[in-house]
């Protein structure tokens, strides 16, 4: 009798424990979000933006991110978008690469040698992304949606989201397809739905506490495909831009408030 009562008590405790776990993880995330080292990367990124580089020894300060040469305010919130000079849709990192090769005269090979950094040595794309994204704080997310190539990019991104592929048969929707699911303790936002995409996209790029790195959306696409057991998507390729475009377009209307914090 006492044993049965004890077992029932244990079962109740286990249920309560599961609910507490989720709540406590929420609190954990909230607490780490309160002081973000992302700001340190913004400082580095500003210095890089203004630093002369490449054979032409010029800075990126004349780079046109879509709002005119050198205009940073709101530029990130309006990407990805179509650029006439490149006749293609570009996200922030792709556009930065474009400016490195055109303005600074660097080769694509040299400029993409280290697109994702380490805790000890961030990549220039990471610091630059933090700095530039921060200049869109308070601006509504509104990527390009009108040019035929922008529409095609969005459609490709959506098709990629549901495309099952790789050694484990995953699509993005395998993990980000149903409400209320988790991998380990990590909640999985259903990113093809606006209400889920908005808070996520509004805080990328972000400082990732588990690796002490500033991570970008190009990195996120790359590392999801790695975990999906596919080969590697090329940095700044149409595939990665299209997925970023689809996710950002799904989040449109939200006010940008990053760079944020991630696990």
């Amino acid at each position, binding site marked *: 009798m006492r044993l049965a009562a004890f077992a029932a008590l244990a079962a109740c405790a286990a249920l309560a424990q599961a609910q507490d776990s989720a709540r406590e993880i929420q609190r954990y995330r909230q607490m780490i979000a309160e002081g973000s080292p992302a700001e340190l990367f913004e400082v580095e990124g500003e210095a890089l933006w203004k630093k002369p580089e490449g054979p032409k020894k010029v800075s990126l300060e004349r780079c046109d991110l879509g709002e005119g040469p050198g205009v940073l305010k709101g530029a990130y919130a309006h990407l990805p978008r179509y650029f006439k000079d490149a006749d293609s849709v570009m996200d922030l990192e792709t556009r930065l690469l474009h400016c490195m090769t055109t303005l600074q005269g660097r080769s694509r090979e040299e400029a993409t040698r280290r697109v994702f950094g380490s805790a000890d040595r961030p990549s220039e794309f990471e610091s630059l992304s933090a700095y530039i994204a921060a200049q869109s704080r308070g601006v509504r997310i509104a990527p390009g949606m009108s040019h035929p190539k922008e529409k095609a990019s969005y*459609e490709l991104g959506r098709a990629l989201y549901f*495309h099952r*592929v790789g050694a484990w048969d995953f699509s993005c929707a395998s*993990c980000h397809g149903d409400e209320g699911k988790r991998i380990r303790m990590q909640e999985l936002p259903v990113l093809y739905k606006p209400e889920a995409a908005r808070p996520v996209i509004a805080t990328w790029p972000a400082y990732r506490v588990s690796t002490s790195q500033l991570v970008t959306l190009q990195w996120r696409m790359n590392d999801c495909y790695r975990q999906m057991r596919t080969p*590697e998507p090329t940095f700044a390729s149409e595939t990665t831009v299209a997925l970023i475009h689809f996710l950002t377009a799904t989040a449109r209307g939200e006010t940008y408030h990053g760079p944020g914090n991630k696990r």
Partner: protein
Amino acid sequence: MSRLALLLALVTLPALGDPTPQDVQKVMQRDFHGRGQAGMDRVVQDGVQRLCTESHDRPPAELAKALQADQMKTIAYPQGSLLGDWQRGEAIAQSGRGLTWNDKPGDAAGGSCYNCHELSPQELSHGTLGPSLRGFGRTRGASPEVQHYVYGKIYNAKAYNLCSQMPRLGASGTLTPEQIKDLVALLLDPASPVNR
């Protein structure tokens, strides 16, 4: 293959202008590159992936049945007991490594089980993409039939539910038959924490 093509043609076609899985595959073949053990052969969809993409994971029943039967044929059962060592099984269930471009080929892979399933109650950090497997063997026992089912399900989940989100852990070469037996033990052995 021609039978498959014919069957696929029966599936509702997406709206005109939307990229088809064939279009997407072509883009991926251009935009991806092989790295480490993750070769470009992996962006070529097989029949299961293609049908599940086309049908948004809701394949017509007839078609699903036919393809599931094909998948069932991929499962190779070892001789004798399918019950391995649950302690090794626990370690395999915990590990999320294997088959990525930065895993060393030949290094033991894990099953990533806790990423999606609850198993041992001691592990609080478990996913919920798949059903909870806590107490799995308590109600089902560990008869040869149950062992056979569990081994097969881990080896090739698509043989049971064509568009399941669970990887084909044996058929994809992720786990060895020995490792799958250890996972069967983790789920069915009465001494396993899953059942205690």
